[in-house]
């Protein structure tokens, strides 16, 4: 109490003398691209500062490749190379799915403190907040993709490099949309964070299985095929398989891009609406 009073009296006397204001630093107009870049850089800074956690994230796709791959090879009866050709693109879609689905989880802690609010008061475009955060998950995905491909190469897997690059762009577009949806769920669940995980777990596994990512749906019951046909992720998975195999002009690639762009459009629309509402 005394401290406060003394400070107050010491400085209170000079309150009336308002010094000439100093010119603020020049502020350039920002746009969607610079805003997105700045959000992305902010999100990546802790990753760069703690490379160990980034390295650790590389292990997950390798676990799937190492533990699920041999089972798939054994049960299909086809040569390992052929099975991996089918399976590796699926692993990368899965990594993208899980990574961008957690965009909202990262946001939950920022919402419970005030740092999300701070970014909302900053002159950042709302879309940049969504896109920048989703892209943060795409950057490690690139490294993961290269690593998985390298590990699979000795087992007869072949990769078409332009196809891989286009495939990553496709995953980034899908990831922006899916990340934005995850962000909206987090906003809607901000006062009950367990709810976020309930929704996350309830949706992510059906989406994953019904896309034919890990196991082919060709021999599944008809209702599963119908479900897969309305799952945008199925088209992304099919497109990735075509791209990795080097069939860049296949109709599946177009289907994948349409599905990814539609997801991005819906995700951003819902996300921006959620940000205005909550």
């Amino acid at each position, binding site marked *: 109490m005394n401290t*406060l009073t003394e*400070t107050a009296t010491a*400085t209170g006397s000079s309150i009336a003398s*308002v010094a000439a204001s100093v010119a603020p*630093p020049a*502020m350039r107009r920002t746009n969607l691209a610079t*805003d997105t870049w700045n959000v992305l850089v*902010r999100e990546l800074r802790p990753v760069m500062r703690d490379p160990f956690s980034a390295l650790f994230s590389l292990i997950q796709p390798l676990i799937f490749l190492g533990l699920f791959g041999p089972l798939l090879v054994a049960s299909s009866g086809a040569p390992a190379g052929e099975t991996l050709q089918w399976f590796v693109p699926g692993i990368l879609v899965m990594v993208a799915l899980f990574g961008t689905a957690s965009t909202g989880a990262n946001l939950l802690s920022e919402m419970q403190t005030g740092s999300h609010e701070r970014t909302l008061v900053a*002159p*950042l475009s709302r879309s940049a907040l969504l896109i920048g955060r989703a892209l943060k998950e795409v950057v490690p995905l690139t490294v993961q993709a290269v690593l998985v491909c390298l590990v699979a190469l000795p087992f007869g897997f072949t990769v078409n490099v332009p196809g891989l690059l286009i495939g990553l762009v496709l995953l980034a577009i899908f990831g922006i949309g899916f990340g934005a949806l995850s962000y909206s769920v987090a906003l809607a669940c901000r006062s009950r964070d367990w709810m976020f995980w309930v929704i996350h777990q309830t949706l992510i596994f059906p989406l994953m299985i019904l896309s034919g990512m890990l196991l082919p749906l060709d021999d599944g019951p008809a209702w599963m095929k119908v479900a897969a046909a309305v799952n945008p992720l199925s088209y992304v998975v099919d497109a990735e398989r075509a791209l990795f195999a080097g069939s860049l002009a296949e109709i599946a690639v177009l289907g994948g891009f349409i599905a990814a762009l539609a997801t991005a459009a819906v995700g951003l629309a819902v996300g921006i609406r959620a940000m205005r509402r909550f």
Partner: protein
Amino acid sequence: MIRARGLGKTFPAKGGGVQAVKSFDLDVERGELVAFLGPNGAGKSTTLRLLTTLLPATSGEATVVGCDIRRDPAGVRRSIGYIGQGDSAGHSQRVRDELLSQGAFYGLSRRDTLARADELIESLDLGALAHRQVQALSGGQKRRLDIALGLIHRPELLFLDEPSTGLDPQSRANLWQHIVDLRNRYGTTIFLTTHYLDEADQLAERVMVMDHGTVIADDTATALKDSLAGDLITLSFETATDAAAAASHIGGTAVGTRVTLTTHRGEEAVPHLIRSLDDARIPLVGVTHRQPTLDDVFLALTGRSLREEGQAHANNTENNNENNNENNNENNTEEAAA
């Protein structure tokens, strides 16, 4: 700096909606320091969120630093600084990194950002912490970082929502030192909400009181106290009979062995009261004289005490914050002393 007319916010709810802010009018001139008081749920934070474009208003209009909150929210955001109730730095981020990101968010050049970050790190005593992770900072250190983040673009107008809630007395004093310095040096206009009446009393020359979504008083602290609450004089006696006799002689209310009375210029009234009781041969045991506080003002306006509600809130915030647990005791002692 701020001009609001009929600003209102109704939250949708069952049975017609909750009117959090009812027709709010406000004019704040450049360089003013305005303290915005009121109990929890009075609508202070909602008002702040309307003015900072965090929430869309449901009625009325406002311009903030010359920008209309509806038509040019981006313009408002560029011109203001806002320091909210929570920690505004990401917990996994490092102190200096957050300042660099914040500079980029406001469109500062790389060189300006670096210069501003280092300047703020120095002036807010964050030097030793610049490369620390935010989650490792104490409550007071986090608050200083919040201020630094809010000031990166040197805004002309700074909004602070409960800046000192949950801080120990020393950190509070330190925080205030920075806010007052800022104002003296750059003439920054400051609009803040607080639960701590002593802060508003000592530091702001203009006090606004809000209750149930409306502003119920707006004046200098001194004027509010003079017009709404007088000095409180308490006289103690040996027996209740003496107290009752004294009350009938000099006025006031007798409760047990005490008589309390409210008056203007209490220091002049006390000698007069003592002489008068002497003449009436009523033996007096003790006298206390207390200047009115803003809490008395609030009590006079609403019939409720702001201090109790504010204190309950402050303790809650602290209990949620593990780092601040040790501060809790200090703060309680301090409140008891006050």
